């Protein structure tokens, strides 16, 4: 028994559209967060949510950030970054290892520090002069 579009529509209720819209928005958000796997070129270090440093992932270096518990060490390498040391008890952000995907984030909650790597904002700028 084939149904026409109108008959299918009659099977839905107004709230169904609301649920669909909300979950659709969640899906789009998920794509925004996880699907951007492109290479990264920037690390953003935050303390208490405020950006305290934005570093290009170009040369190898170590950055020491002072937090309430002590010093968190951020290690920068071309194309990736990680938390090398942190005074937090559980070492979750250290164990997360290298961050090399866009929007990957390591949170050192006890020390109020976070490290996020971000993709190239305009990746094709240098291709066309």
């Amino acid at each position, binding site marked *: 028994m084939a149904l026409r579009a109108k008959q299918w529509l009659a*099977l839905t209720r107004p709230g169904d559209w609301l649920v669909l819209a909300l979950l659709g928005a969640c899906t789009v958000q998920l794509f925004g967060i996880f699907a951007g796997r492109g290479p990264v070129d920037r690390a953003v270090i935050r303390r208490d949510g405020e950006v305290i440093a934005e570093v290009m992932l170009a040369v190898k270096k170590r950055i020491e950030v002072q937090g309430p518990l002590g010093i968190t060490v951020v290690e920068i390498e071309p194309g990736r970054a990680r938390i090398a040391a942190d005074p937090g008890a559980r070492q979750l952000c250290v164990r997360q290892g290298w961050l090399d995907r866009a929007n990957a984030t390591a949170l050192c909650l006890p020390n109020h520090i976070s490290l996020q790597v971000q993709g190239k904002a305009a990746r094709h700028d240098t291709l066309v002069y």
Partner: protein
Amino acid sequence: MTRSFIELPITADDRRIAGYASAAIALSIAEAAIPSPVPGIKPGLANIIILLVLLRYGWTDAAWVSLLRVAAGALALGQLFTPGFFFSLGGALCSLTVLALSIRLPARWFGPVSHSLLAAFAHIGGQLLIARLWLMPNDGVLYLAPFFALAAIVFGVINGLAAAWLLAREASVDELVARADSLTTARANTTAVLPAPTCESRP
């Protein structure tokens, strides 16, 4: 020595649940034969039955059908206690939890499609949680999340519409049966009340 019998009384509820569960199991097995481009993405056709039972007989029956489906489906496919079984169980438990809440939404506004979508999202949520905590303890699996969510939207809507269609059809079948019943009763009454036609009364 006398033989002893253990008798388990079978109620009408048991028969009904078993009937729906067997339909759900059949759909799971049929679905296992459909090739899937991405591992883990399945239409979840058995959920049509779960929704149908939920909306006709309530949450308890739906939970029975769902869990029987997970256990017997896994037995039939030889997947009992494999990782796939635990994914399926975790997904089913999360879905049932969400359905227990969503069924309290006003039915006037939220129909089978809403329940189906919410349950589908709970299902992938539960599976990702199990995958993240147990099988692949790193964030890699989360990169599949958007694709699972997309599949949940698509199949959530399709399964919800299918359940809504079946419910509407069942309602119209019920109505037909009721009308047929009332017609037969009416006819029976008519025959009883009216005097039987005799040859003399004919022109």
